[in-house]
């Protein structure tokens, strides 16, 4: 029965190809849109074309008269459904009542006002067009700075100042630092609104089983369990009668780390019509109504000594929240504050956040969530300081880094950095680039009138979210490992991977720990009916927290294997290695598979031991992890057009131990692509009336293959002591390290013209105007 070939422990660290890929490369994976059920109905959501308006009336009669239309619901009909939840809490936070359909007023273009349900998606689309809403259009405000001005239109009439919260944090003696500074540099730095754009939009299928009072909800989500808890609450359902399945999920990048109106709405519809219903977001809806990211206006001040030592950082963040709080909206800028010292030692910080309502779709977690903004800010400011002091940007960074002997390092913002050698990736990047030679090339090229730039960033990030007291809804993760009677191994993880490859990396961990063939390991996730409660995949946490839970579950299981093995071998001294439990005295052995079979057969049990071979572990991380790295970017600016070409991109990342280099490199590449997107191309633009004018892929420039450079990816390895795997997380690293390096490079290219700062995205026209005004 046990046919598995055992082999030495070698999988961790190997670039093995992914186990999830066969279904994906053959087009046979099941995304939400691929789910079909008998009697399936289709829903289309009717949305506001206005950013701010009162609803005088809604006339659904014409739509309802279309053959095939089975139901239409408006705000009044869903009044018993609870509001879209905000999971973040801040002192004094103003939380608008976020109903799943608008009732008397809409707050952003795209705001859902009704849902049309029909037997066919084409009919539903036709009928949605027939719903007539009588609007009283109101003045809207889309720009957070304008929203703060006296007399600005009030997004929520009850709060005319448009402020959702004020947040303050400080540490050390900031006044002294600035009073005694040799030099103070100031800059306003923007992190523009971005649209996450996973290639799969959101989608929901809801199926009501009336006789069981049970709802099955299939949603393209990163957090199936949290979604279950919250949707159950919204719908007034018993949580154990709601099953949430995250089937194949086509990318998330944070925007599916949320609970959306449509998720509860489809549950409501299914319960009302007593038929399965499917709603698939169009790309236009995705741009209008799925959360955006970033949206910062940051005012920075840095104080320093003449020798380049940074002595203090002041930061005032104006956060464009949009019209509502989605799950984590107000919490995101607080992560920027936590990350504001970057990799530098300074203990004097002062930070203010003003959270501002605007008539736009809410902002929330998008790849990096608060940390790219902070890293962009500090890494720009360090370059600005270096320029002011005429220091080399590498030198000033090396001077201010937390040193390897200072870990664990308490930061001014209350974090404990776990481990690091911050100089190592920067030095490695400089070596790869042949930095000095590159600078010589640059001075030669400048003599020829060319605009060549060299820029770098040294970034740190907060990952592996995280200790539960510091994480809304809890920050632990769960794993169950089962060895089936046949000896096959099933890993159930509470994380919910959607491209990150945990079906492979977790199988690597399990195969190595148990000494079984990786083909005998199956990783299962994303179904609340199959998997114990879990938190989900976001914040570069899946491997560092979820993988660690798997690891500990495996340790428990190994102890049990040894107990059974010792019993079967009649020994009191056994070792488990290479899938065999070996009697250290006689050399006799039993395979893991044989032991598993015996544990289920239960002819005999070790003392105080239950039958079966299953272990569940909920792992609570004692700290975050803090990956770091350095990116170095060479750019050339076209003097005539302002176009930026990235000539070289070097990324040296330290994410601790690497379980699968293929996957890690892929994460870095993808992260960098999104960072370059922000630096050069992407921007969500609302006009003054709150219309999203980058409302489709026609105008919102997601980078395509020809718009991105070759990325030279390398690593240093500093394991974290926070978890036994030594892994820190890598999902967001590329994005966080990227944008400041690119901007620093372009500012460097234009520095001979006196350019000191450029805001993103660095479009050709923006650069051209800078060049022209310098001439």
């Amino acid at each position, binding site marked *: 029965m046990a046919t598995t070939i055992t082999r030495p422990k070698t999988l961790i660290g190997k670039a093995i190809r992914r186990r999830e890929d066969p279904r994906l490369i*053959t087009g*046979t994976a099941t995304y939400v*849109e691929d789910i079909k059920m008998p009697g399936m109905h289709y829903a289309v959501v009717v949305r506001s074309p206005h950013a701010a308006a009162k609803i005088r009336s809604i006339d659904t009669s014409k739509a309802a008269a279309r053959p095939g239309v089975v139901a239409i619901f408006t705000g009044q009909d869903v009044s018993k459904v609870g509001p879209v939840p905000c999971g973040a809490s801040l002192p004094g936070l103003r939380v608008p009542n976020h109903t799943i359909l608008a009732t008397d007023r809409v707050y952003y273009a795209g705001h859902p006002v009704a849902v049309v349900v029909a037997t066919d998606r084409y009919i539903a689309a036709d009928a949605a067009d027939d719903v007539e809403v009588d609007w009283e259009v109101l003045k809207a405000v889309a720009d957070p700075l304008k929203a703060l001005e006296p007399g600005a239109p009030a997004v929520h009439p009850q709060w005319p100042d448009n402020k959702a919260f004020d947040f303050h944090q400080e540490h050390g003696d900031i006044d002294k630092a600035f009073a005694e500074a040799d030099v103070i540099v100031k800059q306003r730095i923007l992190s523009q609104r971005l649209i996450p754009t996973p290639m799969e939009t959101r989608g929901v299928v809801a199926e009501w089983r009336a006789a069981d009072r049970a709802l099955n909800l299939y949603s393209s989500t990163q957090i199936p369990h949290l979604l279950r808890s919250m949707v159950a609450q919204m719908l007034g359902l018993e949580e154990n009668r709601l099953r949430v399945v995250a089937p194949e999920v086509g990318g998330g990048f944070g925007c599916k780390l949320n609970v959306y109106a449509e998720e509860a709405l489809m549950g409501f519809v299914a319960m009302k019509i007593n038929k399965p219903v499917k709603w698939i977001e169009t790309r236009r809806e995705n741009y209008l109504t799925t959360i955006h990211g970033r949206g910062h206006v940051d005012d920075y001040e840095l104080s320093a000594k003449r020798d380049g030592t940074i002595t203090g950082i002041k930061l005032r963040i104006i956060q464009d929240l949009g019209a509502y709080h989605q799950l984590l909206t107000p919490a995101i800028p607080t992560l920027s504050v936590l990350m504001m010292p970057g990799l530098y030692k300074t203990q004097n910080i002062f930070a203010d956040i003003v959270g501002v309502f605007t008539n736009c779709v809410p902002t929330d977690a998008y790849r990096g969530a608060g940390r790219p903004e902070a890293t962009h800010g500090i890494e720009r400011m360090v370059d600005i300081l270096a320029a002011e002091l005429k220091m080399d940007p590498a030198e000033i960074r090396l001077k201010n880094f937390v040193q390897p002997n200072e870990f664990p390092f308490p930061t001014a913002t209350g974090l404990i950095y776990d481990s690091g050698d911050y100089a190592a990736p920067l030095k490695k990047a400089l070596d790869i680039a042949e930095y000095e030679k590159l600078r010589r090339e640059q001075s030669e090229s400048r003599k020829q009138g060319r605009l060549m730039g060299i820029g770098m960033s040294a970034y740190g990030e907060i990952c592996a979210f995280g200790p539960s007291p510091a994480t809304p809804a809890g920050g632990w993760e769960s794993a169950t490992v089962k060895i089936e009677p046949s000896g096959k191994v099933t890993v159930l993880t509470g994380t919910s991977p959607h491209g990150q490859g945990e079906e492979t990396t977790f199988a690597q961990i399990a195969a190595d720990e148990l000494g079984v063939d990786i083909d005998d390991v199956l990783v299962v996730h994303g179904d609340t009916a199959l998997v114990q409660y879990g938190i989900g995949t976001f914040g570069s946490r899946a491997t560092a927290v979820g993988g660690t839970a798997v690891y500990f579950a495996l340790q428990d299981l190994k102890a049990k294997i040894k107990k059974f093995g010792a019993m079967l071998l009649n020994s009191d001294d056994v070792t488990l290695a290479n899938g065999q439990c070996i009697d250290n005295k006689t050399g006799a052995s039993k395979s893991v598979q044989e032991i598993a079979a015996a544990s289920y057969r239960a002819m005999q049990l070790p003392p105080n031991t239950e039958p079966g071979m299953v272990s569940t572990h909920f792992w609570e991380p004692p700290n975050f992890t803090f990956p770091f790295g350095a990116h170095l970017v060479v750019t050339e600016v076209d003097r005539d057009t302002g176009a930026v070409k990235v000539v070289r991109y070097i990324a040296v990342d330290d994410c601790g131990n690497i379980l699968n280099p293929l996957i890690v490199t892929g994460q870095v590449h993808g992260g960098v*692509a999104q960072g370059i997107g922000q630096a050069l191309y992407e921007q969500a633009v609302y006009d003054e009336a709150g219309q999203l004018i980058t409302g489709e892929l026609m105008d919102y420039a997601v980078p395509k293959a020809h718009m991105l450079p070759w990325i030279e990816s390398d690593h240093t390895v500093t394991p974290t002591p926070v978890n036994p795997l030594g892994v820190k997380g890598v999902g967001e690293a590329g994005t966080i390290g990227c944008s400041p390096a690119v901007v620093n490079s372009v500012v460097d290219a234009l520095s001979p013209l006196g350019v000191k700062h450029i805001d993103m995205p660095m479009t050709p026209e923006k650069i051209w105007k800078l060049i022209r005004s310098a001439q």
Partner: protein
Amino acid sequence: MNIHVTINGKNYSHDVEPRLLLIHYLREVVGLTGPHIGCETSLCGACTVELGGKAVKSCTMFAVQANGASITTIEGLAANGKLHAIQEAFWNEHGLQCGFCTPGMIMASKQILDRNPNPTEEEIRHGLEGNICRCTGYQHIVNAVKAAAKATGA
């Protein structure tokens, strides 16, 4: 309107509404799951299929326009249980993460290699202009196309 098409070597005949998009025909009527919908402006390329030997975006075509045509989707690439060289290369080179763009990306890659068996990096990137991937940064996809070129050339 009645249409006849050959999809992945099998003949189909259906009565369809003229406005039925080819992508919906393939997915809803024929029951395929490979071609995906990622946008409505013909930019993302997730719906790419091969029609009469040419890569096309099946979301920007009506099923009636395909009447009489021969269509290959991602489901039709593997033959006799053996993956196509491009599928194999995407797997080996980690040319995908979430996988949603992958069927279209592989079909677009096939078009590149059908027309140019030994493309340069620049030619590959140019040839993928009609397909957006948000996960990979494209580098591993470029590697996959190169690897597939090598594998089929060998």
